[in-house]
């Protein structure tokens, strides 16, 4: 369809007008052309020119802020420290409020187990298996414990980890309520007898 309609443009010797018929704009350089392509003598669109100036002004201001004024909001390490400090203040308030709320309305055992399961599935499952059957980490469903099976034993392991065996400390990743809930959940797995259990490790409770 468009094989031949431009071919007349290819004729180098054709006499061209100095003005484009459609836009009434002057051609640049009279009738010169490249393989039939001509160029119009339009100026730069003003809005584009001003956009360019604005971006240059913004950029230079930004660089002056950094190089001359050493503005702290641009220096990332300082930005980071500020973020951490601000968060610390905010969480302290939130933790106190949460404690008050918890004391007013304690969770039922069912709610505790449900909340514990959510934590377990996010955090513990990767090493201890979907049903607590044990994978890289030990089995939670049998009666054998390496570091003790009392709630306070579990609390110690979760808080401090067993680093030489690859159990990390979760103190900074889970809050106290979450840790208590997950301990309750883990202890509730006793005797559930899931498939693919890891062989017993440690001593019988």
């Amino acid at each position, binding site marked *: 369809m468009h094989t031949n309609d431009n071919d007349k443009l290819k004729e180098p010797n054709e006499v061209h007008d100095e003005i484009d018929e*459609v836009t009434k704009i002057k051609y640049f350089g009279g009738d010169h052309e490249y*393989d039939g392509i001509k*160029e119009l003598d339009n100026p730069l669109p003003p809005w584009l020119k001003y956009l360019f100036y604005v971006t240059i002004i913004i950029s230079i201001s930004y*660089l002056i802020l950094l190089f001359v004024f050493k503005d702290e909001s641009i220096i990332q390490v300082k930005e980071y420290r500020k973020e951490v400090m601000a968060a610390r203040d905010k969480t302290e308030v939130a*933790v106190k409020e949460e404690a008050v709320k918890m004391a007013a309305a304690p969770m039922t055992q069912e709610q505790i187990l449900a909340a514990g399961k959510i934590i377990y599935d996010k955090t513990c499952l990767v090493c201890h298996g979907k049903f607590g059957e044990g994978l890289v980490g030990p089995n939670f469903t049998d009666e054998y414990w390496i570091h003790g099976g009392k709630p306070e034993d579990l609390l110690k392991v979760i808080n401090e980890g067993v680093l030489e065996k690859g159990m*990390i400390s979760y103190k900074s990743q889970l809050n106290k309520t979450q840790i208590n809930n997950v301990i309750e959940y883990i202890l509730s797995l006793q005797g559930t007898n899931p498939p693919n259990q890891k062989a017993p490790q440690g001593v019988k409770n």
Partner: protein
Amino acid sequence: MELQQFSYDNRMTRNFAIATIVWGVVGLLAGLLISLQIFIPGLNFGLDFTTFGRTRPVHTNAVIFAFIGNAIFTAIYYSLQRLLKTRMYSDLLSKIHFWGWQSIIVAAAVTLLAGFTTGKEYAELEWPIDIAITIVWVIFGWNMFGTILQRRTSHIYVSIWFYIATWVTVAVLHIVNSMAIPVSFLKSYTLYAGVQDALVQWWYGHNAVAFFLTTPFLGMMYYFVPKISGRPVYSYKLSIVHFWSLIFLYIWAGPHHLLYSSLPDWLQALGTTFSVMLLAPSWGGMINGLLTLRGAWDKVRRDPILKMFVVGITAYGMSTFEGPLLSFKTVNAISHFTDWTIGHVHIGALGWNGLLTFGMIYWLIPRLYNTKLYSTKLANVHFWIATLAIVFYAVPLYIGGITQALMWKQFTPDGFLMYPNFLETVAQLIPMYMIRAFGGFLYVVGFLILVFNVVKTIQAGSFVAEEEAQAPALETLPNEKTQSESGHRFLERKPIRFLILATIAILIGGIIEVIPTYLIKSNIPTITSVKPYTPLELQGRDIYVKEGCYTCHSQMIRPFRSETERYGEYSKAGESVYDHPFQFGSKRTGPDLAREGVKTGKIYKPNSWHYNHFINPQKMNEASIMPGYPWLAVKEIDIQSTPGKIRAMKVLGVPYPDNYELEAIEDLKAQADSIAKDLLTAGIQTDSNREIIALIAYIQRLGVDISTKSTNK
């Protein structure tokens, strides 16, 4: 004046066009495959050469250098001859260029799948291929400048300005970034380390986008848009301003790929500001393209080829608006490491590069074969499918990228991460990945329609190998600038001077950014506790690079509370001084690994966990999308290569003790034995000479140095 008779060489244009189509099919299918692999781990087939870490570089290299590369050469070989009224300088050079480039592509595909890689994105090819690329590129330049110098037109048109800038900049980028010390025939270590390597790499990477995907396509646009529409270029003055500002500013923008990394603040600031300043010059190109169509919009409505150009140029405008936006640190803090970047890139790739290439092919093939396009209707169908495909491709990635970034950053009121398990944030993306793959599938379908249309067109026509032409010989022009001509007009008839000025324009930014990181020590503060890798860790690191782990995992913890809470202390420049190449990564399909080995850290896992996880990640967590690497437990470490690797590292300035290469194998075996022994206590029996042992050693080293003592000196 006497008219000279000559003919245009259509053979090379045709060859490059066919190569564009063939590699287009390969590259797009590779893209479709990896878009499925990313959410269906089974599609990695458990084989090393079909796994994402290797197929992803095949996709990127195939579409950039094979598909788009050949499209560029098609455009240049066609338009250069006609714009200069002369035949290509040498048929022999054309032939060497064509076959040389195709051989490089084949070599690239084979070596990348076999795991030979430098681990630097879009520059993965190993040193012998890099040398071949340099030679072929020089031959291409020789042929192009030979043609320019024997021209029958007094001045060179704006397309050719862009071709010249493309040629010289790609040459500089490729040579500087590929500098490496060979260890063996297909293994080398890059000359640069850590932050410096990252800076050089992204100076290269960003400007590969600028000078391989942008400037040659602007040249293409300046030829084909007026040619196809029959309309004059909107503004000659705009061409001049946006050409020079674009090539000068672009080269500075690379550091915007390293915002909030351990790159010094002043370099990041240059990356941000020069990206912002690029907006108007980029839009200058879009405007000159679109406004050229003034008075031809009725034609655009009827002609699918012009429609492709219009949507392609608009996509260029969109992605060059988005680019500066993503360079603001506040926006980048969200977009970086997520799929947002992938979406952004594909607006440019599928829209600008893809649609312009399709338009060019539909216009060119009938002319080369002296016939009409087999079906304009099918071309129209292709246009709509491709446009729809871009929407289906990009929108889910924008949604997914932003969602994931916000989940990474979400804290509970009492100060804990809302989603401490990285996998939770991945699960959100699966539906998005499905829609994206559908978009990719549509794009492939559209391309196959093109293939059919082209084959039918070729069958109907007869190839015009030599196209007769005539033009008067070039009259000798005064060597000095005449009074009536402007400075730039004068430059347009002095191509060598033009080349020199363009070279100066593109060198300034790179020199100012890269050199100070070598000369001024404060840019990369030393950390005394950071030590070279042990021989086993070094071998493991090479496996990490070989398997393309960096395509999904970063090693760069940004100074955000959400990242230091998740991963540990943020990354410092002094930590990566022995990393040849750097492995910061650019995408987090999986979590960051910079602190993976820190026992007291937040993400530590025991050796046995890593062993099981490498072999079958879904065994550890069934929702994981990581592919398995079972062959790592079968393949043996290439122990004999160790002394050579240590020697190469010493040449690069890594402070191993004197004659350490002689003890390296012994040390390697001792460390491997201790890991194997540890695995045995967890009930895993394995020989200590397996690749998996080396990789575990490397993973367990990550972040360890700085955790023992982080004294900045």
